């Protein structure tokens, strides 16, 4: 017997995000408190965090953009459009370039459930288990897929499965949905071959996917429409890199929660006006805070790089809590996607640009390569140096067999190459019951307090005790 699911994530998300329409202009703290007052504490706390004073304008733009993204999907069928379910490791720009299709991203919907819906992602997870699926599968995708399997949510017209080669769990859960609900599945395999030939075959797969989407939508991928999307994607890319400069600053003027905004912008809104507006508002916030010398704590104590995902079920008690302690959340692997501009000259240059973009998406660029450890180490050593990280955290999402299987190599190499210590935690990024946030806080406090800040204090003491070189040497 399966667990009962009363409503799907999209429907519930639409109702909840519809609340945002009640806000006029930039609301006060009291207005936000009043708006969310009837929600259960978990949902209220997280939504309030997304509209915290330090990021309120950007938060509003972001929430409205996500709300509109969900409404577009809801209205798609009535407008004769197809709903295409895509995973996070795939550029939605391609689907946006079709007039008759809208993309919905599995993992973003899961995050909405985990973060905003009363009760979090638990009931969907339970439903998945009640089908007999193992408890070690990845909640990032299986929570939303459970919603679809339950028959209480929208059903997509097609599924793009872009993880074969990069993630078994992601690929299998999409295949499972395809089989269970008889929905066509289009594969975009990552060939784990870093040579030019590997890239060529990936390009071929990508073009096959375009043909499948054309068949689904009954529409050719129009060059002018594609160019419009690509130009907007390029604007997003520019803004991303401008924001990246702010992430490098000391103290980092960007609120920690901007990392949470960056991922859905890439996974859902890239190539759209909504994506551009969100990034512009984030940039404006960053500049305003930089100019005013604002930081969320008295001073920046520690710069933290999350080498994989982080935790998304209690952002008030993770991202904002870290900020208040003076710990900057520099990036996680989902916000560290390093986009490149696409040449808009011709249909082929644009498609080639999208191929490269897909190739470089988070997870593909680390786990979809010939060596997971080498690619991951290379990215994280670069990021640690570029962003000036004092330490790194691996959240230890228990379903991720790839990262768990090579994190020992990353740990050794991060220390060897960048002198950055790595804390390996264990917890589910989307399920609050696996490791409670209070335990995670405790572990972070111990690690940062003792290993990172403790080492900084020791270095300062050593410097104070050591005589200055010039004073000690009369010759110089």
């Amino acid at each position, binding site marked *: 017997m399966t667990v009962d699911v009363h409503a799907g994530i999209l429907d519930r998300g639409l109702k909840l995000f519809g609340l945002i329409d009640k806000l006029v202009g930039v609301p006060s703290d009291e207005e936000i408190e009043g708006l969310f007052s009837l929600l259960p504490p978990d949902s209220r706390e997280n939504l309030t965090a997304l509209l915290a004073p330090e990021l309120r304008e950007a938060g509003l733009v972001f929430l409205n953009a996500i709300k509109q993204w969900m409404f577009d999907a809801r209205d798609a069928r009535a407008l004769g459009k197809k709903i295409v379910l895509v995973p996070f490791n795939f550029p939605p720009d391609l689907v946006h370039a079709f007039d008759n299709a809208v993309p919905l991203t599995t993992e973003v919907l899961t995050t909405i459930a985990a973060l905003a819906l009363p009760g979090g992602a638990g009931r969907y997870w339970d439903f998945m288990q009640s*089908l*007999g*699926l*193992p408890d*070690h*599968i*990845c909640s990032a995708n299986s929570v939303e897929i459970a919603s679809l399997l339950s028959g209480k949510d929208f059903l997509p017209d097609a599924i793009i*499965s872009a993880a*074969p*080669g990069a*993630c*078994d*769990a992601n*690929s*299998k*859960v999409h*295949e*499972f949905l395809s*089989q*269970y609900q008889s929905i066509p*599945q289009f*594969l975009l*395999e990552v*060939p*784990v*071959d870093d040579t030019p*030939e*590997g890239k060529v*075959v990936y390009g*071929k*797969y990508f073009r*096959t996917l375009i043909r499948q989407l054309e068949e689904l939508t009954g529409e050719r991928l129009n060059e002018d429409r594609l160019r419009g999307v690509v130009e907007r994607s390029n604007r997003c890319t520019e803004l991303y890199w401008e924001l990246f400069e702010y992430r490098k600053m000391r103290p980092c003027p960007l609120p920690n929660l901007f990392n949470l905004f960056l991922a859905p912008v890439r996974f859902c809104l890239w190539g759209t006006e909504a994506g551009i507006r969100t990034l512009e508002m984030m940039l404006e916030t960053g500049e305003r805070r930089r100019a005013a010398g604002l930081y969320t704590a008295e001073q920046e104590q520690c710069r933290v790089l999350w080498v994989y995902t982080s935790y998304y079920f209690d952002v008030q008690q993770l991202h904002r809590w870290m900020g208040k302690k003076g710990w900057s959340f520099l990036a996680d692997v989902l916000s560290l996607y390093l986009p490149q501009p696409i040449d808009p000259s011709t249909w082929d240059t644009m498609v080639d640009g999208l191929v490269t973009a897909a190739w470089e998406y988070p997870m593909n660029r680390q*786990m979809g390569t*010939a*060596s*997971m*450890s080498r690619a991951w180490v290379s990215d994280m050593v670069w990021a640690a140096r570029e962003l000036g990280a004092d330490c790194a955290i691996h959240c230890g999402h*228990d*379903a*991720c*067999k*790839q990262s*768990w*299987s*090579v*994190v*020992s*190599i990353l740990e050794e190499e991060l220390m060897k190459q960048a002198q950055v210590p790595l804390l390996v935690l264990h917890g589910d990024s989307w399920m609050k019951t696996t490791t409670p946030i209070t335990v995670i806080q405790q572990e972070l406090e111990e690690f940062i307090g003792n290993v990172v800040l403790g080492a900084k204090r020791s270095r300062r003491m050593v410097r104070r005790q050591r005589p200055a070189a010039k004073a000690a040497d009369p010759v110089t």
Partner: protein
Amino acid sequence: MDYINDINQTFENKHVRAFREAGGKVVGFTCVFTPVELLDAAGVMPYRIKALGHPETDLADGRLSRFNCRFCRSCLQLGLDGTYDFLDGILESNGCDQLRGMYENWEYASAPGFFHYLKAPHQLHPDALDHYALELARLRTALEQHFGVTITDDRLRDSMVRHRRIRAKLVALDRLREQERPAMTGSEALQVVLAGGAVPASVYEELLDRLAADLAHRHVDRPRVRLLLGGAATDEPALFEAIEDVGATVVADTFCFGARSYGPLLCETKGAGDLLRTLAEIYLGGSRCPRMFDEFDGRLAFVTEAVAEARADGVILVNNKFCDLHGFDNVLLRMRLEEQGVPVLALEKEYGSPADHGRMRTRVQAFLERIGGGR
């Protein structure tokens, strides 16, 4: 059967030792989409890495984690503790994410002499087949360069013929196993397949001929319940014995350490001329592994046909804890088989854990009672 069982008593058996003493090189691999014909044609002995339910994982746990499947951890353990030091090289493959991690750690920690990564696509798209043929060409070059040999088309063709013959002999043994009174038990059949991955092909062919003659008039007890076993990488004779000990006979299986490694690979292929393209078609087209992401119907048909041919009363689908591929596939297979009226027991187990046997025994007993057998 003793001459088969003896082979699996040690990892470096007498045939491996003899081969190496004669100057031969041995390369380890794990996945059944590895074209052993290429290694054979290079004069290199392909050795199928296994763990035989090895319960120790302390060295491997320092590199992998407890969230990785224990089959991979056990294999890595044997790589790190020196058991597999007799291998002259390792052939990595992307059978699953965890195997990739296992190989990366093996390479990182102990730098084996020959190390090559064979990347197999996860679909049968014509571009994927072309890409796999290219990968096979890369493997051919790597073997030639490292071992200083030339793999001629003639040698490769001869090797392909031999391995096709071996697979046909294994299929013939399956027919003996499917009889009203089977010629051997499931655990004995597993030993036969395990031995095949641990001896040179020429030796194996002779052993199979001898075995076929020995089994021609041999019968085990008439099974009270005829079972098909399928699911995740299972090279544990003890597991088969535990299941057969409670009153069933495993008359067929669909394991990669079993029928999946020869039956589907026996297929005739359309490819002509280009041997590597032909091998690509044989191995990808014949893959019944859940790592292929658009071939579920083929896997279901493989199980359904095996159930019918062996007249199995029920199916047990086992899954090693933390195996995503079979974790998903077993559920879908169970649903589809039950729709067809085939009783199924889905059994998640901890690989190489004798402590798990008691729990599994109880569940198997209950299943056998449900389908009308057991003791």
